[in-house]
């Protein structure tokens, strides 16, 4: 390496390699704590978008009620625009009429964004496996991060799902 650096002909190339390697080391050294800090922020600040797709929204409401109070985890129902949200909880059945809208809501959210499939209908279609107007699960529409089973799931199960999602975020890269 040193020889190459000294050599007039190979020097420019070797310098580039050296600088590149130094940069890699720096990025690794800086990147890891940086990732951790950002992921820590993301973990405790999940704002779900207000999109009620079906009846599971009742239990989502119960989860933000005083008894289960998901604000403890930093999850506030950001009662506003989807541009400020980072979590989409698919609360139940997705019908054929809703599916394009769901996808559009997902598309318009800023990255990074996470999806929780809540309830049997969102996971596999559940009770409506043979209905003419219901999608068999939302896997074909959105990439799902966590599945929360139940019909509807208890708020505890939803909170457990959110904790799983936090684990998942912890292990992902920041960018």
């Amino acid at each position: 390496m040193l020889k190459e650096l000294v050599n007039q002909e190979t020097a420019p190339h070797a310098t580039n390699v050296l600088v590149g390697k130094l940069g890699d080391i720096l990025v690794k050294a800086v990147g890891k704590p940086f990732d951790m800090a950002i992921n820590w922020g993301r973990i405790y600040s999940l704002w779900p978008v207000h999109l009620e797709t079906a009846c599971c929204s009742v239990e989502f409401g119960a989860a933000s009620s005083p008894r289960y109070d998901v604000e403890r985890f930093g999850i506030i129902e950001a009662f506003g625009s989807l541009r400020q949200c980072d979590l989409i909880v698919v609360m139940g059945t997705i019908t054929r009429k809703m599916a394009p809208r769901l996808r559009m809501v997902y598309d318009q959210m800023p990255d990074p964004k996470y999806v929780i499939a809540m309830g049997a209908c969102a996971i596999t279609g559940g009770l409506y496996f043979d209905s003419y107007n219901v999608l068999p699960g939302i896997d074909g529409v959105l990439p799902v991060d966590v599945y929360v089973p139940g019909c509807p799931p208890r708020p505890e199960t939803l909170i457990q799902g959110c904790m799983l999602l936090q684990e998942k975020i912890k292990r992902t890269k920041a960018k």
Partner: protein
Amino acid sequence: MSSGTDKDVEVKDTAEEHSTSSENTKPDSMSKDEAKKFYEEKGLDLSPDVPVKPKPIPAFEKSLADKVSSKFGDKITVDYVRADRIRVTAKRENIVDVAKFIRDELKYDHAESVSGVDYPDSSEIEVIYHLGSYTDEKLGRQIFALATRVPREDVPNPGSDSTRTPSLRDVFYSVEFHERECFEMFGVYFEGHPDMRRLLLPEDWADIPPFRKDFKIKGR
């Protein structure tokens, strides 16, 4: 799915065997009480499949039904008169007149629901208006079912085939959304309805109306 249907058939078979065997063991000549005792000893269920005891026809409901039948004669048929429930079938040509009579003379003032029933065997679709009354105290318990039958086509083309009937929106304002639903679910076009659009189904629905009997859902 295939295994599921197999299982279904299996269980149905066993159930039928069960019932037939119990019928076989039952002696033919038995009074009602004896049969009851027999069933109780066997630990079997007592409830009959079909209610058998005839109920008396109540007077008030009978008078209402008579009013309608005396006015319209053989244009309508009174299907049944039970406690709190009357059902009348009218032809679709005079359903508006019947409805107006019911509203003005019998004081039924709103429609609770508009349902369609598909009868592919007789190639007809039945449209039933369940009418109720808020203004008349005596009619608080009553539901008046006004039915009509429209022809049904095997290859439906909703809106432009013969499956159509006059709308009752001018008579009972409250049927507006119910008739829209009936239109998209059965393909019955209501003539004179101001806003005959699709209501519940997706905008790109291109299949036959889903509540018809020949529309099969998955795996059935």
